[in-house]
């Protein structure tokens, strides 16, 4: 993959006039300016499904909009607003504080918590939701036990099936996004920013708020944005709570009122909202520049002692307990009760499919994210940034809507190919692209590009321009620069991205269901089948397997980064 002739030839830019358009293309390839087009290419690919969804806007949807406005819309919007606000502030608070403490302080169990706090990533949010309700709702063991001890009146017990309940479950499920991204930042610059703060005469608290926190902003915002997009797209968790959001309305229009058109129109609105959020965030970010601060060989942590240390340990174990141990324990109990009846060698097949798909998708998605981020670094103009925003929108769409958006153009292409084959060769080809792993992987990429782009891009921002200049001075350019200069510095970001995508793909349902080839059932498909008939105890078996499989990449990640 080496590109020959990578020189800083000043004449290269003039080839347009000399050799015409194709000459220009050839020369841009030689000088690696092909990077210029890459983000647009990827954005174009992602725009196909999103455009398919948005194109519904020009189709009639009957009186469904009027009905929504007259009945449930106001309530849905209020519900969605509070959910978004709650999850954003909650994941930021929990994620950032845990990241700070494990990166900068020393307290009992810090080493263990620093990786264990990532584990909740492996549990799908709807599973956490179901377990939380199973344990704490009226019929759960907690309230039942309390009723036997304290009498039948438990009016003081908070209603778990409430707005607060959904928010808490989502915070517990999504905080690792913020934690993972922010910790990376604190590890590399936290301690130094504190030292700098001290030299400016600030104390630790001031140093945290005035220096460390603002410096970690792109990572925090990146993590919170992921949590938010996940929240907006979520259908499983809110369904378990029967909490009506914009997304439940999308599904109701589709499944209940048989109007995929109305559902797509609602979903388009969601895309617009997320896009505006991204643009606003970008505007703020554009005013700042983040310089590199490489990780020193050894970080000296602030030793804490006494009650502070134990308080921290308690905080970390509490989070870990509710976000991971409790759900896994409950799943384990359910799974054990059906194990002998349900377990067979097919589970090996499900596991293999899950692992393979996740690994391939992580590989593809992270590669694309890396190339796109690098391209944006070389051409940091507004158009490129917009293209990248568009390319990462797939994450905010409800999964099933995106799945249809992907499926329709693929089927169209397939039908077109098949009609061509019939005309030219008089050959019945059937569907060629649909139902292949290739389609599936592209679909995963359109969904999860945001997840891989966020950590890689934040890491890329940390590489100063002076490094690029120095590299160029040594005659490195294009691929060579990416490979020899940037990749080693980006390692942490890439591993973070790969871990996130791997685990997310493993949990993903709608795209897997709709695009999988015949017989390609995965653990997530198995969970879908069990839960769709309300058999949650049976769903626990594949869910436990999924959590265990999700631990692989997390452990791998920890081994790579926590040396």
């Amino acid at each position, binding site marked *: 993959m080496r590109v020959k002739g990578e020189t800083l030839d000043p004449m290269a830019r003039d080839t347009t006039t000399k050799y015409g358009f194709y000459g220009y293309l050839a020369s841009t390839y030689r000088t690696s300016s092909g990077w210029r087009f890459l983000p647009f290419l990827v954005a174009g690919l992602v725009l196909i499904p999103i455009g398919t969804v948005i194109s519904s806007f020009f189709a009639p949807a009957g009186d469904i909009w009027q009905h929504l406005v007259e009945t449930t819309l106001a309530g849905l919007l209020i519900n969605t607003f509070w959910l978004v606000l709650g999850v954003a502030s909650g994941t930021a608070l929990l994620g950032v504080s845990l990241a700070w403490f494990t990166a900068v302080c020393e307290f009992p169990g810090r080493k263990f918590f620093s990786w264990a706090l990532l584990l909740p990533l492996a549990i799908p949010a709807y599973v956490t939701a179901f377990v939380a309700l199973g344990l704490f709702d009226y019929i759960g063991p907690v309230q039942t036990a309390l009723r036997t001890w304290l009498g*039948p009146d438990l009016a003081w017990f908070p209603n778990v099936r409430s707005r607060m309940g959904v928010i808490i479950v989502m915070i517990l499920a999504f905080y690792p996004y913020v934690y993972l991204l922010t910790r990376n930042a604190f590890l590399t610059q936290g301690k130094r920013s504190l030292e700098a703060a001290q030299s400016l005469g600030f104390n630790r608290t001031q140093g945290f708020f005035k220096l460390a926190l603002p410096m970690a902003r792109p990572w925090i915002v990146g993590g919170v944005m992921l949590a938010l997009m996940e929240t907006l797209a979520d259908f499983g968790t809110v369904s*378990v709570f*029967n909490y009506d959001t914009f997304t439940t309305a999308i599904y109701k229009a589709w499944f209940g*009122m*048989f109007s995929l058109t109305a559902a797509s129109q609602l979903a388009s609105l969601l895309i617009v909202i997320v896009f505006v959020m991204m643009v606003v965030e970008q505007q703020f970010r554009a005013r700042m520049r983040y310089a590199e601060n490489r990780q020193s060989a050894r970080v000296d942590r602030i030793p804490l002692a006494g009650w502070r240390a134990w308080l921290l340990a308690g905080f970390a174990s509490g989070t870990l307990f509710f976000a991971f141990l409790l759900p896994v324990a409950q799943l384990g109990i359910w799974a054990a009760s059906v194990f002998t009846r349900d377990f067979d060698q097919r589970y090996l097949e499900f596991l293999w499919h899950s692992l393979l798909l996740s690994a391939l998708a992580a*590989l593809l998605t992270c590669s694309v994210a890396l190339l796109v981020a690098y391209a944006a670094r070389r051409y940091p103009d507004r158009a490129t940034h917009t293209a990248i925003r568009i390319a990462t929108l797939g994450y905010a769409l409800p999964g099933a809507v995106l799945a*249809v958006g992907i499926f329709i153009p693929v089927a169209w292409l397939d039908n077109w190919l098949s009609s061509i084959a019939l005309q030219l060769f008089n050959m019945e080809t059937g569907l060629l*692209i649909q139902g292949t792993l290739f389609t599936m992987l592209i679909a995963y990429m359109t969904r999860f590009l945001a997840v891989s782009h966020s950590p890689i891009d934040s890491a890329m921002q940390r590489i100063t321009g002076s490094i690029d200049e120095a590299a160029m001075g040594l005659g490195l350019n294009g691929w060579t620069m990416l490979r020899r200069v940037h990749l080693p510095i980006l390692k942490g970001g890439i591993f973070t991205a790969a871990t996130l995508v791997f685990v997310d793909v493993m949990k993903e349902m709608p795209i897997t269901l709709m695009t999988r080839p015949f017989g390609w059932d995965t653990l997530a498909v198995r969970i879908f089948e069990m839960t769709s008939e*309300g058999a949650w105890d049976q769903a626990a078996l594949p869910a436990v397997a999924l959590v265990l499989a999700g631990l692989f990449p997390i452990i791998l990640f920890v081994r790579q980064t926590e040396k």
Partner: protein
Amino acid sequence: MSRSCFNRYLTAMLCCLTVFGTSLSHAEQVVVYSARIEQLIKPMFDAFTKETGIGVKFVTDKEGPLLARLKAEGKNTPADMLITVDAGNLWEAAREGLLKPIESKTLEANIPAYLRDPQNQWFGLSVRARTIIYNTQKVKPADLSTYEALADPKWKGRLCLRTSKKVYNQSLVAMMIAELGEEKTEQIVKGWVANLATDPLSDETKAMEFVAAGKCDITIANTYYYGRLMAKNPTLPLAIFWPNQAGSGVHVNISGGGVTHYAHNVPGAIKLLEFLSSEKAQNLFADVNMEYPANPKVKIDPAVAAWGSFKQNPINVTKAGELQAEAVKLMDRAGYR
């Protein structure tokens, strides 16, 4: 990352991106898109293959995506048959032109007219009865009568319901609209909502557990959920009441199937449907999930028969589809979440 490592990585990526072709098999087979989950269809497919030598290839998903898929694939669809777990989606598939009317004396003989499409585009294969479940310690069966009567203020704070987003409730309300008209039905649904002891629940097993635990006294559920729950925990103080026996009968829905409009193997798909409606398969199809057979000549599973016999509402299940969107809107207006 060293250079050679990077190159290997790129090569691996490219290899993985090459298209994995689907395997081509020459033996006769029927391809099924199914919203009924694998556990509840595979035993019948295996029996079919054993008897006829025709293979069955299937993929499961929710109804919405399956219909979208059939529509997008058009005449090149690999699917010969569609199976759903409710009548509404079969009606919608037929309306979208995704199914094909078929002629089969066997199916017409096996499946009663009210459980199939008047144009024979789809056929019910099992019956899902939606009934009233009550707490035996707190409710006397004599106090119960109809679905409509659950709107009576005497049940205030005593009713638990599953969410209106579930298709079974949408079908039930659609059928009520068909029988009672929209205005009357809306009053009844408003009455239900006013009687709720707690917000609507996400699934009906939960709703029954709430009834058993005493949070409320009655709920509406499909019988097989009751069967499953009682099999796991036989001591729960729950029982079935068959409503509307003096009137039109218990609301029933179907799990059923039809041949797709662009099926490649129409004879094979019809053969499969006929097989599924036959006595042999009907017991498998219904019993595996404690449902009722659609074929009235077939004997009901003894465990299910023990719940008592009842009069089914003979109104054609097509109505569930026709009026489903209306029902959803009505429940929105009534504040039934």
